[in-house]
């Protein structure tokens, strides 16, 4: 009986400190990674403005949240940000279509090299970053309101009588639910609807798609609209869970890229899973397992050190190393298969 409890405690410990945070963080990365992969698959360039576009959408959600809060409008126990999400998405889509019309379209029509488009996206990154900082400033902002926890550690301990507590933050649950809804809708859209199929066709072979009467303008527009959804939702979920800081969002571009490439760039299913691969790797490698082993091992084997593979400073480095390894051995990503 004692042993069983120890085992349960160890499992709960891992769940609480690694699995649940990794699933949350992974979902946020996954949304970003699908965004990168869609742009890469349909518009054929690596979008270096990814992080800042996510930040741009989130900025609207933050500002609207403040406005709604001052107006006294809320969702009760849910964060107000969920209410502002549709408006933020709309603003994001308008911005993306605007950028596309005045910046990317020219290069698409003149069939520039992907590298050139990537450089152009660097320009967009600078401009977006400037707009964000001019409007909202570079500061760290929290805009999470409503109920903070679904399950508190103390409640869990009382319920089960275990010595290890399990906490579920409401942001974690929201992230998971929203991600599942959004991603399943997206995959349904890509596979089952006519527009989605035409998008996939366009991405597979542009010339053939054009020959069979697919309207490239429509495909591009739909892509940006989906991208707007993914970027804003991903950004807002990340901001709710942690906080909103433009510089952090810019940096998040890097693990998102890693996730997209690990999953096989151009492949949305891969990107989705890639997000979780990166998140789990980052958290599992930098977690200190000392307590876990204390629960599991008999007393004389208990470790004195933290039993940590790498210090948390190297969180980012872990995902990048995974990326380098994947690029070395499987340049087309772990989850090859059908491209969007």
């Amino acid at each position, binding site marked *: 009986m004692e042993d069983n409890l120890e085992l349960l405690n160890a499992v709960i410990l891992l769940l609480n400190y690694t699995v649940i945070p990794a699933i949350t963080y992974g979902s946020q990365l996954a949304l970003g990674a699908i965004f990168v992969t869609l742009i890469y698959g349909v518009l054929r*360039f*690596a979008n*270096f403005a990814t992080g800042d576009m996510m930040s741009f959408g989130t900025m609207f959600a933050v500002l609207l949240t403040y406005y709604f809060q001052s107006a006294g409008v809320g969702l009760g126990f849910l964060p107000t940000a969920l209410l502002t999400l549709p408006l933020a998405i709309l603003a994001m889509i308008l911005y993306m279509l605007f950028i596309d019309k005045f*910046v990317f379209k*020219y290069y698409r029509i003149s069939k520039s*090299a*992907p*590298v*050139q488009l*990537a*450089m*152009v996206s*660097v*320009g*967009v*990154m*600078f*401009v*977006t*970053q*400037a*707009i964000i*900082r*001019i409007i909202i*400033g*570079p500061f760290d902002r929290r805009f999470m309101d409503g109920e903070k926890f679904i399950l508190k550690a103390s409640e869990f301990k009382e319920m089960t009588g275990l010595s290890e507590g399990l906490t579920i933050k409401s942001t974690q649950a929201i992230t998971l639910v929203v991600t599942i809804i959004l991603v399943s809708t997206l995959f349904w859209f890509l596979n089952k609807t006519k527009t989605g199929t035409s998008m996939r066709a366009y991405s597979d072979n542009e010339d053939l798609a054009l020959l069979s009467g697919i309207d490239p303008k429509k495909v591009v527009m739909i892509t940006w609209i989906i991208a707007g959804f993914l970027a804003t939702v991903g950004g807002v979920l990340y901001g709710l869970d942690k906080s909103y800081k433009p510089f952090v969002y*810019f940096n998040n571009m*890097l693990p998102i*890229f*890693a996730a997209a*490439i690990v999953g096989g*760039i151009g492949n949305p299913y891969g990107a989705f899973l890639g997000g979780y691969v990166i998140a789990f790797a980052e958290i599992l490698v930098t977690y200190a397992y000392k307590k876990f082993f204390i629960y599991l091992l008999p007393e004389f084997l208990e470790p004195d050190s933290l039993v940590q593979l790498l*210090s948390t*400073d*190297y969180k*980012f*480095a872990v995902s*990048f*190393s995974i*990326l*380098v390894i994947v*690029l*070395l051995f499987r*340049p087309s990503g772990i989850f090859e298969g059908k491209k969007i």
Partner: protein
Amino acid sequence: MRKYFNIIAAYSIMLFLIIMVGIFQSWSIALSILNYCLISAVMTMGANIQWGYAGLINFGIMGYTALGGLAVVLVSVTPVPEAWSAGGLNIIGSLILIISLVLIVRLILKKYKNHKYKNYFITFSIIFGVILIRFVAFPGIEAIEAVNPAKTGFLGGLGMPVLFSWIIGAIFAAGLAFIVGKIALGLRADYLAIATLLIAEIVVSIIKHEDWLARGVKNVIGLKRPVPYEIDLQTSPWFINLVEKLHQGKLNLLSSVSDKKDMLNQLVIDASSVYVKLCMTGLFLSVVIILLILTQKALYSPWGRKMRAIRDNEEAAGAMGKNVVKEHLLIFILGSAIVGLAGAMMVTNDGLFTPGSYRPMRYTFVIWVMVIVGGTGNNFGAILGGFVVWFLWVEAGPIALYLINFFTTHLDETNALKVHLIESAPYFRFLMIGVGLLVIMRYRPKGLIPEKINVKKI
């Protein structure tokens, strides 16, 4: 002469702008901008060699810059004997272990190419090696970091002259470029960009968090200089005399002796900082000129022609018997070495090494904007790009402030919009750089001074 007209015009405008800063702000600021322009020019030349000569996209400039800076610390700082005796052996031991681990993995890859369990062997030896290295290194690292952590807490350098470290910086960067090139050069252009960006991020995070190496985010300050110190100049009679002579007219206007003395003191302090910066400028300028001569020679040599052939059509060049892979690796190493040199120059100029400040925005993307704006494949263009973009980057804040004030003169001082805009003036630099890049890419895709290839007519 006409051929070079736009180059000369562009550089004169740039020089004029810097002189304007000297007149309107101060000569010290103008010289700092000029120094940074020169450093940026060196970085841009490195990136331009890779991108302009060979079409390789390297978003890892940040990593090479940081390594160059690290070299300054490792070469010029006086060694810390206590730290060496506390944990030096462990560090050397783990270095040997790392090298032997790499050799073992290489050996397995070479000798047992077709062995069934090859991958397991490699995984096992890497895991075992990493654990062993941790066990060897960890006590050493702790001991080193415990040695006077407020001031040292690291191994220190070799105590050699700082100029020597510039060469070492270039060699460090070249070494990293060799490894990165071996790993990533086979990738397609945009993958290469992402991979180099992320590898640079790994390098910087190692420099940031390995305190025993260069104090990490605690920074190393007071690095040696290849030029005199202000404080020495202010006390040396020849310098005071020089300043006195230069400002004779101004000083004679004052009647009281004490006023004269105060004035002279102030002038000497100002002049000393200008003098130090001028010395730096001389050093940097000579580096730029030497590099410019070398790169121009290379560009118009048979080797340069070969590189352009590879850039413009890899398959054709390969079919003509050029070793594309080897040339790519070589040019990747050369370009990165120049960037490393620039990184060392920058740290020398600042006199401090701050690993926390290495961010991709400033050290990768801005440098790339310089390359694109200046003119890919043209060294004069690259240098000009470094000058123009750095100038904008620094002066964008003041310019934006001026414009904001100009356009909001009718608004109240306490107007919320005005206050907000004035507070966010520094961020207009991103806007200017971004819009500049977009405009240049759209309307002058070859940059301000485009590449010119002189084909001799037969």
